[in-house]
């Protein structure tokens, strides 16, 4: 009886062993794609797809980044990827592919094809960060910062915001991009990555898109203000001028909120409230900083900030795009479902902005 049971068990085990193989592939038989770049091909209507591959290092103690870039042109992205399989001896594995760089020429024309592909790929749809590469995606992929140990790691860290806390970078996931393309009342944005030579890249601008292509590129200063409005606790510094001296304060915590006020039909406006708790970081004068002065610095900083923010908001309004999702916000709070977006369309160009900044400089930063 007992031996019979054991035999059955053993047989089951053996049968199970034969099932092996359909999905079993050792890690050393896979090659990891860490970034995808998509540029327009030579022929009109084709894509030039570039893959950045991370090659595992045999000796971990040596800092020796090995990477390989594959390029293939085709009118379909999936076709290009399938063809590239024949160029390497191992299986291409996309599970660690966290960044997709769109060439600027594609972004200037139409991003919807690529976005559609990216959200359909089941293995990367939830992890992919999007960015625009300048001058092209391939150039950005070729950048190899000296601080990097794993290929493309710096790109991934910068784009996802896990590494640097730069106030100039916003991270955009593929599904977020997709949503803002197809949702009424919100327009997509994309960070721009500029390749500067072989060893450096710069991410400090945001491109505003009108569902399809780039319409407006914000300057680094505007990008920072944009990030201040779109997320909380932005770590940055802002200037404040007081009596001929220049002060810089560091934002320890920041928050912003807005309200769309449309009670008066002829005078709709958006009221922005920005609250910042700050620490004084820099002082160009030799003056002693007193508690009273901190208050004054805060007031003057708030005035400057609200002026700059108002200018940015007017610039965005005049471009006709809605990267903050004000339209969505408006639609969500009104019941006239058939007409609300049309009303919003007519309201939007007439919108005015009231920005109330509140800067509280808590501490002079000096050792007492």
């Amino acid at each position: 009886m007992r031996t019979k049971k054991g035999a059955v068990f053993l047989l089951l085990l053996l049968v199970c062993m034969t099932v092996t193989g359909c999905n079993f592939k050792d890690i050393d038989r896979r090659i990891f794609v860490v970034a995808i770049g998509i540029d327009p091909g030579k022929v009109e209507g084709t894509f030039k797809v570039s893959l950045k591959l991370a090659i595992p290092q045999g000796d971990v103690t040596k800092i020796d980044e090995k990477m390989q870039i594959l390029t293939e042109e085709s009118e379909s992205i999936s076709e290009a990827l399938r063809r590239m399989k024949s160029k390497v001896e191992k299986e291409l594995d996309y599970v660690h592919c966290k960044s997709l760089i769109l060439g600027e020429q594609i972004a200037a024309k139409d991003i919807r094809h690529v976005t559609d592909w990216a959200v359909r790929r089941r293995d990367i749809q939830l992890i992919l960060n999007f960015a625009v590469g300048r001058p092209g995606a391939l150039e950005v992929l070729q950048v190899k910062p000296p601080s990097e140990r794993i290929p493309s790691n710096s790109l991934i860290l910068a784009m996802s915001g896990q590494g640097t806390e730069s106030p100039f970078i916003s991270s955009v996931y593929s599904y977020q991009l997709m949503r803002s393309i197809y949702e009424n009342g919100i327009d997509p944005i994309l960070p721009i990555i500029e390749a500067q030579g072989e060893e450096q890249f710069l991410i400090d601008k945001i491109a505003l898109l009108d569902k399809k292509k780039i319409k407006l590129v914000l300057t680094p200063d505007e990008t920072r203000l944009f990030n201040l409005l779109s997320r909380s606790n932005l770590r940055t510094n802002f200037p404040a001028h007081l009596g001929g001296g220049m002060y810089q304060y560091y934002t320890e915590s920041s928050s912003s909120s807005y309200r769309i006020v449309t009670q008066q039909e002829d005078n709709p406006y958006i009221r922005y409230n920005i609250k910042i708790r700050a620490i004084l970081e820099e002082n160009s004068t030799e003056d002693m900083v007193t508690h009273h002065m901190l208050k004054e610095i805060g007031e003057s900083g708030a005035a400057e900030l609200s002026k700059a923010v108002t200018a940015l908001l007017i610039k965005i309004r005049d471009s006709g795009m809605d990267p903050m999702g004000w339209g969505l916000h408006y639609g969500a709070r009104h019941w006239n479902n058939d007409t609300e977006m049309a009303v919003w369309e007519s309201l939007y160009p007439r919108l005015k902005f009231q920005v109330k900044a509140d800067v509280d400089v808590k501490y002079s930063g000096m050792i007492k």
Partner: protein
Amino acid sequence: MSGQLHKQGVTLEWIRGQLSGFGDLEDKIMAVPSGEVSLLYIKSVTDGQTISRNVVAPFYEMGDPAAYYSYIADYPGSEEVTEGTRALDLLLSGYACIGQAGRLCFFDALKAEVSGVKETITESISQGPSDALGESLAVNLNLIRRRYQSSSLKMEFTIIGNVSKTKVAILYDESRVNHNVLAELKEKLDSLKLDVLQAAGELEKYISSDKLRIFPKTIVTERPDRVVFNLAEGKVAVMLDTTGYAIVLPSIFNDFFTAMDDKIHLPFVGRFLKLLRILGVAMTLWLPALYIAFTSYNPEIVRVQIALLIGGSRATVPYPSFVEVILMMIMMEFLTEASLRLPRAIGPTATTVGGLILGQAATAAGLIGNIMIILVSVVAISNFLIPLNMMSFSIRVLKYFFVVAAAVLGLVGVVICLVGFTMYLCSQRSFGQPYFKLFFLDTLGTTLRKKSGGE
């Protein structure tokens, strides 16, 4: 004889009633023509030589019960007692009771087996008692009785083995034990047909009903304090002559992860240590399986850094990951087994040669990945966190199930295996008690209060 005893007063009768079921109770009548004297003592806690020299011999030399009684009562350390509970306490702590004409005198004949008691080997703890059960049943009973001085602790003796005639003692606290468990145990012991019984583990095997079981259902321990602790929880202990281990039953899964010094530590430290142990079990069970799952099926779960690291360290490895894992694990088992059999002096050498040199050489030769070496050592070390050997061995075997499941189905296999074993554990019973319940006593607090308040 009974008439004589009755005349000696209610107290002695009452004591007999209290101590009924004590297999090691010695109840004697010493008689000379001029009268007789009752002698009552518990063998396991008293010294037989002291009694024969200082209690029995003088009686026959003097030949006069009354004079003898006053001789005993005047003996240093002796005590005349009229109160029942005090009498029981003295008897249990190693006094012999001499009764003459209704009077009771207690003679100090305590046997403390100090010299013969060895230190614990397999269940060492950092603080707390280090006495281990010895190989003589008398010594062991003495160790238990000294730690559990209650009249409700009963001992019953039986003999198992047609050839070996092994003396087996069943210990239990009458007021706390679950009598169904006791009955089931006795029934099983009675139905045993054996020639030779030599070890506690062997007996454990015979009294467990399930033949193809993976987890131990009864604790096999060498610590008298663990036995006492479990007796107080209402469990039954079975002790064998000629073996240094006792069996405690019924036992639940959680019991195997309790070390005896958990109670000594500060609350947070104790809990932290327990958490460490559970974490250790998780590591030793799952790490090899997860390694296979991550390297061969689901590399997306780990970070890209680790994925590349594993990929790099496996670049030279010729065989698939599960072959690598099973190879190294078997090697590690060889080492563990080998160092167990080796004499103490050579043991460390074997570990050094095997662990360090072999591992280093294997990676240098490119036969296994660097990560694998780390993994194997973590698995080996965390396995030893389990305080009881039986469970430690079970877990050691169990991890191969996970390895096979991972090799066949990847991460899904590990999860299926885990669910399967959880279900198996839940279905298990140890002498009718649910095996996987968290605490043996549902009302742990009340029991402790009862204990400290005194019954």
